[in-house]
C-alpha cells in the first residue's frame, strides 16, 4: 500500500466509524433533538471523510467531481433539513423540556402555552399535541 492508500484507508474507516456512532446515538438518546445531534455527525463529517478517502483513492478518474459535488451538496442541505425538522419538533412538543438549558423560542419565565384539555381541564400538558399520522381522526378533515 502506498502512503496515499494509507491516508485514504484512515479517512474511510473514520467516516464509517461516525456512521456507527450515529446508530448508537439514535438508540441511546432520549428525544428528537438529541437524536438529531447524533444523526448529524455522519451527515457532515462522515460524508466529508468518506468522500476525501474516495477522492484520494480515485484520483485521476474523470468522474471525481461528482464526489466533490456530493460533499458540497451535503454541506448545503444538512442545515436546511435539520432546521425544518427541529422547528417542527419544538412546535409539536417532541422535546424534553426538563433537559433544555436555554429555551429561546419560549417566553422567559413562563411555561409553554397549553390549551385546556376538554376532558382533563386541570392538567395534561401534552394534550394539545396532534397525532402523528393521518389516522388522527376528524380533526384533520375539518
Amino acid at each position, binding site marked *: 500500500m502506498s502512503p496515499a492508500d494509507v491516508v485514504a484507508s484512515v479517512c474511510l474507516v473514520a467516516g464509517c466509524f461516525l456512521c456507527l456512532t450515529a446508530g448508537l446515538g439514535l438508540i441511546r438518546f432520549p428525544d428528537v433533538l438529541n437524536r438529531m445531534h447524533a*444523526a448529524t455527525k455522519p451527515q457532515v463529517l462522515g460524508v466529508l471523510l468518506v468522500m476525501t478517502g474516495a477522492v484520494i483513492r480515485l484520483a485521476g478518474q474523470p468522474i471525481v467531481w461528482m464526489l466533490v459535488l*456530493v460533499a458540497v451538496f451535503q454541506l448545503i442541505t444538512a442545515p436546511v433539513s435539520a432546521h425544518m425538522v427541529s422547528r417542527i419538533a419544538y412546535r409539536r412538543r417532541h422535546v424534553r423540556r426538563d433537559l433544555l438549558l436555554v429555551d429561546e423560542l419560549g417566553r422567559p419565565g413562563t411555561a409553554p402555552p397549553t390549551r385546556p384539555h376538554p376532558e382533563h381541564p386541570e392538567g395534561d400538558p401534552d394534550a394539545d399535541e396532534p397525532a402523528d399520522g393521518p389516522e388522527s381522526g376528524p380533526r384533520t378533515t375539518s
Partner: protein
Amino acid sequence: MTVVAIACFALLGGGAVLILARLALGPSLLDRVVSTDALLVTIACGIAVYCAVYRDISLEPVLLVVALLAFVGSVSVARYIGGMLVSAETPTDATPSDADLAGHPEPAP
C-alpha cells in the same frame, strides 16, 4: 485493501442495524424522519466506500441520487407534518385519539 473494506462494511452495517432499530421503534414520526436521513447517509457512505476500495466508478451517479433523495425526502415529510400541525391547531374540537396518547415519546415530567 480487503481489510479496510471488511472493517468499513462492518462499521456501516452495525450502524445501519442500529438506525433501522430506531426506525422501527421510533415513537414519533420525526424520529423516523431523522433515522431515515441517517440511513440514506449510511447507504451513500457504503456506495462511496465500494467505489473507493474497488476503484469502480460505475456507481457514482447513484451516490448523487441518494444524496438528493435524502434532502428532498426529509424536507417534504417535515413540510407535511407542519401542514398537519396547522390544520390540527385551528379547530376547537380537540379530542385526543389513541395515537395522540400512544405516540408521544416521553411522559410528562
